[in-house]
């Protein structure tokens, strides 16, 4: 028996289903876990050595110089290596699924995880079109970000720990999208939350960063409550938590628009809102920028935060059966998109701009899956992963360079504040060009990836059935958001890369382009940001100018690819709501809107560039603070303050009351009272113990007489 066959058997490979035979699906999961184990062991070893050195009185061993210890060189190969392996395996499976009519997911069950009463949960993974798309994004973009991290984190003493966490994150993220039932998905869901917490607080010596990690974790607990509730209701109704069993039984078991379906959808939505940073639980994501920048790219832009979108797409039939729930998804998405975009207008921290931009784009995805355009939501998820990862990595390169420049002269400036940058295109041409590509993509300008995905969502929101006032309003909000997006991204680019340099004469000479490990991933992501959108060009658009009059290779590929996953949801929607309209509320058909949207976005980019370069920008410490409405936007609409005032402080007050009154007065009081009474009784009893032999003899006699009396009587 060859090694491959042996491994295949060990990993529980079974007969092929529907002509598709998954190739080592378990290994895709195991590779990142293996990377975590090895890197984790190296991190422990490095930590022990560092601690020993500190105890011995010498400074921590230098891990940045020419002869770095093995604990700091091995992760360079293991971290990205396991990711490359996982990506190649995913690619093999992805290609293997081409041309196969697969209407049911292929499920691999390894062992029975729990069997308690009516509930049986298998440790099972499933491969279908949706999970494979997600896996491609996770392992592909994940691999590029791992490579980028090699350059970015090289000088950090926690280098092996960093890769251990990153590998562990990928393992959990893959578990999330590959799980074949809700509990498996929940394991991944919580696991990525844990890794997010660990990586946000990666530099935990900094109190603020450790607090940001805690904030992310605690805010996510609110959402997890919703997910758990949804699972309880699902189990109560269906008696199982397997995806296949639930989704195939749902159209018959649940009444359309009924209480149960609505409750399930709303609780699932609460879970998705927490993980995907939507209003009102989005507040953790901007703070999560405290983590290393590649982490922001991988976890807080490309993969983890899209888990909510994945959840809605995965449970699409449940949302289709609950029109109120689906409308709530779309409404929350629209509010989030517009709200976050306004905040991004006035941020000066380059990562904060991108963070609010991410929140806003996630809102777009929610709008898409909320109006039933599940493929469009997943499409935007994918293109967003490309260009937002690119933007974050580019920002990382900028911060890296700025940090070096400021560090070289020990200047105490903020390396992330765009007011301290300016004119960086001369020093970092590759970063500059690739980031412009991503900016044009996110702004929705043809032919970049974001144009196709974002316009598809806007289109479906506008034409959604029922064509009610609500959807027309959401459609208007989506267009407004798209224009704001084009503006704040242009502002960010101009402030960072154009105009005169504001870093300082002595510092500017130290600004430099990043090493190859960082620029190559940027380049690859830039290519994907250009062409990534071409996989799902709608047929009518493909025939027009925007599709090169039919030159673009594929039309509606992703829609058709995901068709088996969303089929039952589409059927429910079609039966209950009818088809989508063929024209938008204003402005005509699909092609016409493509022209309007890209024209508007291009105009905003050009005008925005002129406006921002026309304004005089001073370094952060010389700048006047914003006033008026600008200050409200800069201070993020005071949402954090609002939460602090009306949620955090009341809870703290309640806790304090519980402590002062219930614990200290009531409980401690009761305990102390029992003690005091015992002491009092003891004191009273001790009065009889005079030490006088006469008293004792008297009491003894008395007692004997009483006993005697009782016996006689």
């Amino acid at each position, binding site marked *: 028996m060859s090694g491959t066959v042996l491994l295949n058997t060990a990993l529980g490979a079974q007969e092929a289903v529907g002509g598709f035979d998954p190739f080592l699906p378990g290994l895709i999961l195991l590779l990142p876990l293996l990377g975590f184990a090895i890197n984790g062991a190296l991190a422990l070893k490095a930590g022990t050595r560092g601690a020993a050195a500190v105890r011995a009185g010498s400074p921590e061993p230098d891990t940045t110089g020419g002869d770095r210890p093995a604990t700091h060189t091995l992760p360079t190969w293991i971290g990205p290596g396991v990711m490359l392996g996982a990506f190649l395996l995913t690619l093999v499976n992805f290609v293997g699924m081409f041309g196969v009519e697969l209407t049911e997911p292929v499920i691999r069950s390894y062992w029975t995880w729990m069997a308690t009463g009516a509930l049986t949960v298998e440790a099972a993974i499933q491969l279908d079109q949706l999970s494979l798309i997600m896996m491609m994004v996770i392992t592909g973009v994940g691999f590029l970000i791992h490579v980028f991290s090699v350059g970015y984190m090289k000088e950090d003493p926690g280098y092996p720990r960093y890769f251990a966490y990153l590998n562990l994150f990928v393992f959990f993220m893959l578990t999330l999208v590959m799980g074949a039932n809700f509990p498996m998905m929940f394991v991944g869901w919580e696991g990525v939350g844990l890794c997010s917490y660990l990586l946000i607080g990666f530099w935990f010596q900094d109190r603020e960063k450790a607090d940001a990690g805690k904030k992310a974790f605690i805010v996510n607990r609110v959402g997890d409550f919703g997910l758990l509730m949804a699972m309880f209701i699902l189990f109560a109704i269906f008696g199982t938590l397997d995806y296949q069993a639930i989704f195939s039984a749902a159209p018959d078991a649940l009444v359309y628009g009924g209480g149960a379906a609505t409750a399930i959808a709303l609780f699932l939505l609460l879970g998705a809102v927490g993980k995907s940073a939507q209003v009102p639980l989005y507040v953790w994501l901007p703070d999560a920028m405290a983590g290393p920048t590649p982490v922001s790219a991988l976890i807080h832009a490309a993969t983890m935060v899209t888990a909510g979108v994945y959840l809605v797409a995965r449970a699409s039939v449940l949302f289709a059966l609950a029109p109120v729930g689906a409308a709530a998804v779309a409404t929350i998405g629209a509010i989030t998109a517009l709200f976050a975009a306004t905040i991004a207008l006035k941020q000066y921290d380059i990562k904060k701009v991108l963070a609010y931009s991410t929140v806003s784009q996630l809102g777009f995805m929610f709008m898409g899956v909320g109006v039933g355009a599940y493929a469009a939501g997943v499409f935007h998820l994918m293109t967003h992963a490309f260009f937002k990862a690119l933007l974050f990595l580019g920002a990382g390169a900028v911060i890296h360079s700025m940090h070096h420049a400021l560090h070289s002269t020990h200047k105490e400036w903020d390396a992330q504040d765009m007011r301290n940058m300016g004119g960086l295109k001369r020093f970092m041409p590759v970063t500059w060009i690739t980031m412009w590509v991503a900016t044009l993509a996110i702004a929705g300008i043809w032919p970049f990836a974001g144009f196709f995905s974002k316009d598809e969502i806007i289109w479906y929101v506008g034409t959604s059935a029922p064509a009610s006032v609500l959807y027309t309003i959401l459609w208007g909000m989506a267009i407004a958001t798209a224009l704001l997006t084009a503006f704040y991204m242009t502002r960010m680019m101009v402030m960072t890369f154009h105009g005169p340099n504001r870093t300082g004469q002595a510092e500017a000479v130290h600004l430099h382009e990043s090493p190859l490990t960082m620029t190559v991933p940027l380049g690859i992501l830039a290519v994907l940001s250009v062409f990534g959108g071409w996989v799902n060009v709608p047929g009518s658009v493909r025939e027009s100018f925007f599709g090169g009059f039919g030159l673009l290779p594929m039309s509606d590929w992703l829609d058709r690819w995901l068709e088996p996953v969303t089929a039952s949801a589409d059927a429910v929607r079609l039966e209950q709501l009818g088809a989508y309209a063929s024209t938008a509320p204003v402005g005509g058909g699909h092609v016409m809107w493509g022209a309007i949207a890209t024209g508007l976005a291009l105009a905003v980019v050009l005008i925005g560039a002129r406006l921002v370069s026309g304004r005089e920008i001073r370094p952060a410490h010389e700048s006047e603070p914003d006033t008026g409405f600008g200050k409200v936007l800069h201070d993020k609409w005071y949402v954090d303050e609002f939460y602090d005032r009306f949620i955090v402080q009341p809870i703290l007050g309640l806790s304090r009351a519980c402590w002062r009154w219930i614990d200290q007065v009531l409980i401690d009081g009761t305990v102390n009272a029992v003690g005091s009474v015992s002491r009092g009784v003891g004191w009273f009893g001790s009065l009889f*113990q005079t*030490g*006088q*032999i*006469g008293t004792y003899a008297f009491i003894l*006699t008395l007692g004997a007489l009483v006993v005697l009396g009782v016996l006689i009587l």
Partner: protein
Amino acid sequence: MLAEALVLSAILFVIGTFGVLIRRNAIIMFLCVELQLNAVNLSFVALSRYLGIEGQIFVFFVMTVAAAEAAVGLAIIISIFRHYETVNVDNFNLLKW
């Protein structure tokens, strides 16, 4: 015959009890305890005539224990007297709490 013996035993026991309760001289109290013991001994002996030999055997045990008790008790009283120069039990009140 038995009745008289038991009445005498009771009288001796009550005298002993009151002696222990009323008197304050340790040695007198001690003697009174002995009086109680011997009152019980008397009732044992009296009753053994009717109920069997065990009562008499028990008397021997009581006398043995009483002898041992007298030895220990007198030793304690002597050491207390050496300390306080008195055998009045009102002075001894440390035997508490």
